[in-house]
């Protein structure tokens, strides 16, 4: 699944895995920050964090994460924080999924 992604970036598999590993670590911490921003109704901060998640995902070719971060960003801008919380939860689950793949 990840093969065409690192080939597209002309990286070696271990280099790409290192980047995805970093993506998982930083995204987990970002999602935590995002959840506390949702709890304090800070829509500006939510969309800022989502924007950064989106930027990282797109550079690594992780389209699923990009789409989810995009939804979070847009919904936060619209003030729909309930929807962003739901999507953040899906994002988090997907992170666990990709973490399992790279750890195996």
């Amino acid at each position, binding site marked *: 699944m990840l093969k065409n992604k690192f080939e597209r*970036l*002309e990286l070696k598999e271990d280099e790409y895995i*290192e*980047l995805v590993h*970093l993506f998982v670590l*930083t995204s987990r911490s970002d999602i935590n920050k995002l959840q506390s921003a949702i709890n304090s109704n800070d829509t500006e901060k939510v969309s800022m964090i989502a924007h950064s998640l989106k*930027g*990282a995902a797109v550079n*690594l070719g992780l389209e699923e994460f990009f789409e989810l971060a995009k939804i979070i960003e847009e919904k936060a801008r619209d003030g729909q924080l309930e929807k962003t919380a739901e999507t953040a939860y899906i994002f988090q689950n997907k992170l666990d999924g990709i973490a399992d793949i790279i750890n195996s």
Partner: protein
Amino acid sequence: MENQGRNDNEKNTENSRHQKLSVIRPLELPETKNSAHILLAEDNPINQKLAKMMLIKAGYQVETADTGKEALDKFITSSGGFDLVFMDMQMPEMDGIEATYHIRKWEAKSIAPSLMLNGKEGEDLSTSIFELTPHRKRVPIIALTANAIKGDKEKCLEGGMDDYITKPINRDILFEVIEKWVSSAKLSGVSPI
């Protein structure tokens, strides 16, 4: 039938040309450019690492900064100077535009003592500053922008940047811009006095 055959031939030639290009391209970068020293200012750790990996693999020497402030500090204190700066527009503490402003201001003081001669009479012309600074040329600064927002290019250029590339980071565009600016800067750079 004949036409069909010719089209196929054209297609084959086209295909083999593409293959040839993609095989040759990485070797086309002259060694001198690959030794270029690059400052990469990008706050997103993943994007920073990805760009750094790409640049190091191509043989460039890379220094990184997580904020505009760090980029400015590294730029000023670097002993050998940089050949090119990649500057993210949005960064915490100090954004790319502000860091560029300070870099240009510092460069103007360091590389153009003649401008200082036009300063107020009796002003310390600080030739010692000039002698101490290793930089002798205006370093190209390339903006990294998150999206191609209309007017963003103008904002970069007005802010003292030379060019911009949009994210996601594309390896070919990254190298193209280095080739464009590092060589031209070397050609038109202010010669040491």
